[in-house]
């Protein structure tokens, strides 16, 4: 089987309130990826548009974007799996290319969360869970992940300080990322001082500083067949492994609360397809929508044994200079989390790392990179492995 490559990546700056429309936002990530790949719009044979649609006023944005981005009359369609939409878009593009249906496909993720108020946004996020049986209790994303945090602490002795260390790391690198929404430093003292905003309670045991920031943003990944990649691109990054999994939306249907089964299953598939293991990963982007999510990712991806994720952050093993650098672009915590754009932004970071074009956050000579992108509260899991 021939290979499939990523030949261009781009993203907008992630911002608190984008001063433009969704089609203009999508253009920003698309423009950067197209310039990166040195393509014209005629070269793109199809586009896959990814977001969580309940934030959009525009119905069926795919058709609107295709026209605005100059991608008529090529086909376009929509892919949605909450926060992992654009990783699912990558999976879709891989299948389109590998099937021979198209040679070059653009995966465009976007979210303009500021189209609606913060309270409305929280209500919609609660409805990313089971609206029949759980949402009537007043559920929200932070509270669900907080339940995982509580269970992890009870089972493994993980502490609030361990979680704060993950936030401190994210902020260390967020300051170096000129696309990040949050570029200030964060210290342990910020998360422990009762009067500090970062220490404010959200959903116990999680604090303000444990939660990622809502943001508006877009991302774009250009996927190509091996033949086209050889023509268009000097440094193609190859898709080595793709994994995807689902579980019960209702927590009552689950058995594991110290990790995410979808991440374990998706990583098992991706490692198998790529023919590599956790020790082969040189740089990783994980879905740190909350600090506990990164802790669980360490364990679910096999970077640490279950319960030992805290040792990785305590020893700074996941810093840029460590054996397994994780989220050296600031992660969702500092870079921001525009739902549909997040997976594409994570992929962009790994592609730039593997091309050794990551600037101040470049890790030393990485060969293999991994993206872990989760939709909902561990409802959808995507793990993708890339090599140069």
């Amino acid at each position, binding site marked *: 089987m021939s290979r499939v490559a990523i030949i261009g990546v781009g993203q907008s700056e992630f911002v608190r309130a984008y001063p433009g429309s969704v089609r203009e936002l999508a253009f920003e990530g698309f423009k950067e990826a197209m310039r990166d790949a040195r393509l014209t719009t005629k070269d793109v044979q199809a586009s896959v548009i990814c977001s969580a649609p309940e934030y959009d006023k525009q119905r069926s944005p795919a058709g609107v974007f295709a026209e605005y981005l100059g991608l008529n009359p090529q086909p376009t369609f929509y892919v949605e799996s909450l926060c992992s939409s654009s990783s699912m878009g990558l999976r879709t593009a891989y299948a389109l290319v590998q099937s021979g249906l198209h040679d070059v496909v653009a995966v465009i993720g976007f979210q303009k969360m500021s189209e609606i108020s913060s309270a409305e946004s929280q209500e919609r996020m609660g409805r990313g869970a089971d609206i029949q049986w759980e949402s009537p209790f007043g559920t929200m994303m932070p509270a669900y992940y907080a339940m995982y945090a509580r269970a992890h602490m009870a089972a493994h002795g993980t502490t609030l300080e361990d979680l704060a260390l993950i936030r401190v790391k994210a902020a260390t690198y967020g300051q170096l990322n000129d696309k990040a929404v949050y570029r200030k430093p964060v210290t342990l003292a910020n998360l422990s001082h009762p009067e500090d905003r970062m220490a404010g309670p959200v959903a116990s045991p999680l604090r303000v500083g444990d939660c990622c920031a809502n943001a508006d943003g877009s991302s774009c990944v250009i996927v190509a067949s091996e033949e086209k990649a050889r023509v268009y691109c000097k440094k193609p990054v190859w898709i080595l492994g793709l994994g995807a999994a689902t579980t019960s939306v209702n927590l*009552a249907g689950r058995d594991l609360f110290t990790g995410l089964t979808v991440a374990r299953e998706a990583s098992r598939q991706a490692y198998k397809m790529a023919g590599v293991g956790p020790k082969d990963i040189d740089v990783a982007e994980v879905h740190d929508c909350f600090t506990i999510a990164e802790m669980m990712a360490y364990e679910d991806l096999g970077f640490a044994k279950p319960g030992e994720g805290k040792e990785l952050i305590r020893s700074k093993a996941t810093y840029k200079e460590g054996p397994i650098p994780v989220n050296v672009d600031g992660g969702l915590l500092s870079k921001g989390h525009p739902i549909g754009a997040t997976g594409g932004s994570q992929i962009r970071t790994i592609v730039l790392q593997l091309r050794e074009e990551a600037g101040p956050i470049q890790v030393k000579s990485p060969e293999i990179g991994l993206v872990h992108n989760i939709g909902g509260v561990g409802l959808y899991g995507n793990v993708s492995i890339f090599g140069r």
Partner: protein
Amino acid sequence: MAEKKESDERFKKFGTVSFTSLTKTNDFIDYLEKGAIAGTRCKDCGRVFFPPRADCFQCLASHMEWFEVTGSGRLVSFSKLEYGPAGFQDDVPYSIALLDYGAFKVFGRIGKEVPAADIAVGMPMKTIVNRLPNGQLNYVFVKA
């Protein structure tokens, strides 16, 4: 003129804000009205479902009977919310939680009268029906 057919919207009564009005599991509300929390069991294979469902994916059939949730479960985890989503602002603070009954689990809230200091992962709790100030019905967990 033909008479408008009345729809069975009992499920609108579930929780502070219900997002569902039509479901084949509407009898769940009748059980709540009687003070009981009920799940469903497939008459063909015996599989139990909580929350209840009308259809068994194992048998590809819809032969369900109701059973009542009794006894106590173990507290798997919980979180106290300081902010609520739209429609729930008047309820905060409140704690959501999960109880493990062995054969099934129940997701809900912890009763407001349970002292925060007493709540710990692993503790036995039971599920009781609760009538909210706005007349809606839900269920909460209290010490077993």
